[in-house]
């Protein structure tokens, strides 16, 4: 399980496009990206396994920005790798309607499905978002989990 826990390390970072790049260039004193999404590797929660005897594969993500943002929508999808095509399994969307202060995270920790069997399966997450920033809608492109490692969790 320790391996699984370690495998949930932060994986993806994304920079909001064009307008945000412009804002960043306009403020070169800040070395950090103005906005980003981070998505975990797919993993199995040890606590849930111990508590229920059942395993669920899960992926987590959050969006954060160095500027005020509002109407943030953060989508997280759970996929499993396959041949010839990967399979979409589940997605959840968190909508935060108010203003989100700089550096405050909008989180989506609700994307999980229960395992049906122990078949080793490669899972990964995809996250993307949109937000109203600086008077314009900004769209974040898809960010994938850094790793898609086989987990004993088939569906």
């Amino acid at each position: 399980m320790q391996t699984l826990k370690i495998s949930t390390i932060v994986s993806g970072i994304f920079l909001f496009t064009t307008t945000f790049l412009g804002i960043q260039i306009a403020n070169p004193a800040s070395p950090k990206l103005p906005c980003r999404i981070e998505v975990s590797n797919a993993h199995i929660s040890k606590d849930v396994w111990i508590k229920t005897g059942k395993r669920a594969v899960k992926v987590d993500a959050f969006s954060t920005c160095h500027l005020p943002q509002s109407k943030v929508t953060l989508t997280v999808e759970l996929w499993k790798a396959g041949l010839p095509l990967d399979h979409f399994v589940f997605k959840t969307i968190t909508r935060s309607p108010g203003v989100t202060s700089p550096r405050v995270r909008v989180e989506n920790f609700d994307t999980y499905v229960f395992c049906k069997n122990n078949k080793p399966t490669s899972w990964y997450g995809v996250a993307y978002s949109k937000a109203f920033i600086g008077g314009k809608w900004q769209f974040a492109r898809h960010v994938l989990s850094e790793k898609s490692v086989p987990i004993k969790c088939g569906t």
Partner: protein
Amino acid sequence: MAVNRNFLTTDQEVRESDVIAECNRLMRDERSRYESQAAILLEKGSFSRQNGNYLIRYKVMDNRFAWQANPPSAMENSYSGEAPIPDSDDEKIEQLIELFAHTEAGFIS
């Protein structure tokens, strides 16, 4: 508060464990009600249920089951989701049972 490397704080990890365990319990204990709800959803294409503060609407959309959970206040977070519709009738029922339980168990974030 310390944030673990899988993004969740210690409190959020407790919440995560509670919510997913509740989802598991609901799938077992509310199976009969969920089977009835699934029959309605598959027949009519939509179904709504008040769960705590959230009004949850379920829909059959093309090749996906979709749901939307709206709070009473427009200033609170809302949640939605989708899952692909399986081919067989039995798999559809099982998919919906998990979906109903997932939405009623509550939200972690």
